[in-house]
């Protein structure tokens, strides 16, 4: 019988392109045996600091999250380990989902504001050009 401390890998990834024999799992979850759902490590494939750091920031802003950190396992492997520990009320998966959704909302807002600014700048330039004629 294994020790309680031994990690029990819970492979929950989506398998695509089975015909080519190639497994493109983008996301795995690893949970130590014995803990409940509030401490989980997510393995995100094909990702790096770009998503890792911004996601970590959004998840840390959640008051229910006690700990959130990410590492790149090795520079030649393109994957990150993101660990989330919550204070107990919220399952870690939900805080991960919430972090992703909030990051998407931030991006949407940045996009809207940016496009509005660009449009305003172009209009201003156009009207300034007209004024000189």
């Amino acid at each position: 019988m294994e020790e309680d401390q031994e990690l029990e890998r819970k492979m929950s990834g989506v398998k695509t392109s089975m015909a080519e024999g190639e497994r493109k799992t983008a996301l795995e979850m690893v949970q130590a045996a014995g803990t409940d759902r509030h401490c989980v490590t997510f393995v995100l494939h094909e990702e790096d600091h770009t998503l890792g750091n911004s996601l970590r920031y959004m998840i840390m802003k959640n008051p229910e999250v006690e700990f959130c950190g990410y590492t790149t396992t090795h520079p030649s492997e393109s994957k990150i380990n993101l660990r989330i520990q919550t204070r107990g009320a919220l399952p870690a998966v939900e805080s991960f989902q919430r972090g992703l959704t909030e990051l998407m909302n931030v991006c949407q807002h940045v996009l809207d504001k940016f496009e509005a600014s660009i449009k305003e700048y172009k209009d201003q330039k156009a009207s300034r050009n007209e004024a000189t004629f």
Partner: protein
Amino acid sequence: MAAAQAVEEMRTRVVLGEFGVRNVHTTDFPGNYSGYDDAWDQDRFEKNFRVDVVHMDENSLEFDMVGIDAAIANAFRRILLAEVPTMAVEKVLVYNNTSIVQDEILAHRLGLIPIHADPRLFEYRNQGDEEGTEIDTLQFRLQVRCTRNPHAAKDSSDPNELYVNHKVYTRHMTWVPLGNQADLFPEGTVRPVHDDILIAQLRPGQEIDLLMHCVKGIGKKVARVANPRLDTFSREVFRNEKLKKVVRLARVRDHYIFSVESTGVLPPDVLVSEAIKVLMGKCRQFLDELDAVQMD
């Protein structure tokens, strides 16, 4: 009073000391400071966030983003540099290369040439697909032969006079439309961005004859983004003994200056919009994965 000011400074400013930079990392997470509510609030973010365009022309853009954290601003910078899709030469089929430039060096140079084609109109090529279809590939032909100029003066030593076609430029690349591409893209719109990039040099008798496949991919794209401008802040004041004690240099933590320069394929404001959409796409991909997993 002083303590409150010190806390404010720690939260909002990056301080440039004489020998080092302090307060670099973001610390305003919930629970770190008593009396502050640091939980994420979308409305508060939207109220404080601002984008100001300083300067824009067809190849470069400079704008300020205020009210956003380093992590997210850096994510945009990283995506702009490496993950905005672009069309570039990937496969080079060499029929004849008797020039002094080796095949692989020539192929490497061709891969760096920016191609004027909107990557949003193309799909990614499927893995293992060798031929390429009209929806994911652009074909270019490069066929140049160098010959001696029979009309050159006898004692001339200028290569421009002596040889014909001795310099191979990007303007020698011709587009070979696949399928219905000729109808979709009017003549002259699909080409290298610059006509005058020197690819190779030849001498009489040497010839280059090759076919290039240009596909959509992510990778190095020459867009320089600099934020914040740490190097333009003058620190001369620290050399003056008397001023040193009186002056304190600090930077506002969440004010970022972006300076984007495009290779010419897409205008810089489109590049930034695409970069933001790439980040949204990543989030959406993981949200979909999570939903799919929770279904089982």
